[in-house]
């Protein structure tokens, strides 16, 4: 291979990576370290936080109440990731096998929503799903139409249309999160599928495997790194989602990020908020660690 080992050229490597490294340390690691220290602190008066090394914030954060909220957030994020995977895989396949002419346009279509602010997109969804929203109006029109046709053929008309409850519940939260996170799933899947050696698929089909079997036995295993990357890239931001549950959720749709936000703002309890944040970060570290361990196993052979 023509790739150069970075060890052969340490100085050039250092020169190139120093600005980025500096940036990460100054604007990511240092602030994170401060928040981490806060998680071992206590409020003193209205504005002071004393880093006393107490573990009481973590003790409170692992109370049953907060564990159930963590659990629920994780379940919601996992469901969102699963739906994104099921929806995103065929889309990524379609883009991969689309003609050269169409592919850039399809990719553009996937990325198009990123051109608009998340908040604007969420408000647009709310207008779509509301009681008087377009989705309900469309369903209502269909209902009226069916009712009219029934009276035409001499049957009893349908009862009056009652709008469906599409907004301000957990369904709306999952719907909104899937909508927001789908591109995060499709893009890594596409990257993995695009690199796939097509001759393997042809061989599988030639040797008598059906399309479904080829996908299950050839395409999915070969695309596994892309699937894992897509799952991580979807799951982690979905776990920290707070705008969508806030705006589209109902009375029982709070996720852990909403609780954390309230600690920093309304409750003015930064140490506790920091402890909750870091529990979430520890959980994500664990996820990434598990993933990288899984990846190491086949390489050993």
């Amino acid at each position, binding site marked *: 291979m023509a790739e150069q080992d970075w060890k052969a050229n340490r100085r050039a490597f250092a020169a190139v990576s120093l600005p980025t490294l500096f940036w990460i340390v100054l604007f990511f690691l240092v602030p994170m370290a401060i928040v981490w220290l806060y998680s071992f602190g206590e409020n003193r*008066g*209205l*504005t002071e936080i004393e880093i006393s090394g107490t573990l009481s914030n973590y003790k409170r954060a692992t109370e049953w*109440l907060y564990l*159930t*909220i963590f659990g*629920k957030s994780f379940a919601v994020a996992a469901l969102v990731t699963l739906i994104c995977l099921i929806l995103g895989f065929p889309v990524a396949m379609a883009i991969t096998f689309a003609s050269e002419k169409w592919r850039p346009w399809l990719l553009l279509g996937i990325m198009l929503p990123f051109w608009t602010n998340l*908040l604007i997109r969420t408000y647009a969804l709310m207008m779509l799903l*509301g*009681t*008087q929203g377009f989705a309900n109006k469309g369903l209502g029109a269909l209902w009226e139409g069916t009712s009219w046709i029934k009276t035409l053929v001499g049957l009893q008309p349908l009862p009056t249309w009652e709008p469906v*409850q599409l*907004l*301000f519940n957990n369904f709306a939260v999952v719907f909104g999160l899937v909508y927001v996170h789908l591109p995060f799933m499709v893009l890594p899947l596409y990257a993995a599928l695009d690199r796939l050696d097509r001759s393997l698929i042809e061989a599988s089909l030639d040797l008598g495997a059906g399309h479904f079997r080829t996908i299950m036995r050839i395409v999915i295993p070969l695309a596994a790194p892309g699937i894992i990357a897509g799952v991580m890239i979807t799951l982690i931001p979905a776990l920290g989602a707070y*705008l969508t549950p*806030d*705006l589209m959720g*109902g*009375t*029982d749709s*709070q996720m852990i990020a909403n*609780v954390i936000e*309230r*600690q*920093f*703002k*309304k*409750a*003015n*309890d930064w140490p506790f908020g920091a402890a909750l944040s870091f529990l979430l970060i520890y959980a994500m570290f664990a996820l990434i660690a598990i993933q990288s361990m899984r990846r190491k196993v086949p390489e050993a052979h």
Partner: protein
Amino acid sequence: MDFNELIKQTRGRRSLLQALGVAAVGISFGGLAACSKQGGKTLANGEEAKLNFYNWDTYIGENTLDNFKEATGVDVTMDLFDSNDVLFAKFKAGNPGYDVIVPSNDFVERMSKAGMLLPLDHSLIPNKRNIDPAYINVEYDLQRKFSMPYTWLALGIGYRKSKVSATPDSWKVLFDSPEYAGRIAWLSEAGDMFRLFGKYLGKSVNALTPADIATIEKMMIKQKPNVKKFHEDDGQDLLLKGDCDVVLEYNGDIAQAMVEDKDIDFVIPKEGSQLNSDNLCIPKGAPHPKNAHAFINYILDANVDKHITETILYPTPNTAARKLMPDSYQNNPVIFPPAEALAKCEYARFNPELQPLYEEAFTRVRAA
């Protein structure tokens, strides 16, 4: 100018920016960086001709800042915040360079107790005489040592007239009855919710105990299935869009919605309610305290406040300005509720012991 047209241009100060929290931080960083660099001319009072104003969104007259510059030569840089919590969090580590801020009543108390506010020099604010005396000696800031009232608000029930069986003039409708199941919206602010439940139970908003909080928590969990949404102070939008028919909201916000939709009305429940007031204050460490006093005095001027009120349409404590407003504002029973209803309303005092209890109890209610 027509009252209706005025209102249509107005949006609630707490709605959109609230959700854009991150962007708001960005706005203010940019604003300050831009204003702190230039030197500029010096005024007769020895200060440079600048003022940094930290205000709510859509909460100042259309031309007020330009007019102030014309009158005094002082260039005002306005940054926006979306909640008292953001304001407090920002000042927690010291004044980032603001001269005038607009905290609500309980945060005036909180910030003055934390030593974050500069005592006002009343001799520099002669327009104080325009203010209704009822708003001068208030519990949260006795004799207005640290603050001047800018607007005030009362919480109550906004409702769609065609969808209710009778005027919902009791908190029972929102808090303790399945009659409007699935059409109710509460505020997402834990402290306000617990205090108003206290009102429903016949207690003062400032006399709740941890035992009361436990009782109220049970009541909330019981009523929760009937509630559709804990809203972020956008109850008027839920009413307008038809998502909810009875919402807990501020009178000023409902007054705006009523102009767009005649089917909406507002009532302060008979058990009484909670008052809020936003106040002009000078934070400690303000770089231009003299300009800040001049600015506060300017805002309290009758004509200036009339112009502000025309834009933001909130109830004003400024009697002189109110008298200049059209009759549709002056005698609007929603913007200025009847005295007997207001007599049962109270300001919430700042209570550092109870606030975390409210928050945790409300988190339990949401999780239940």
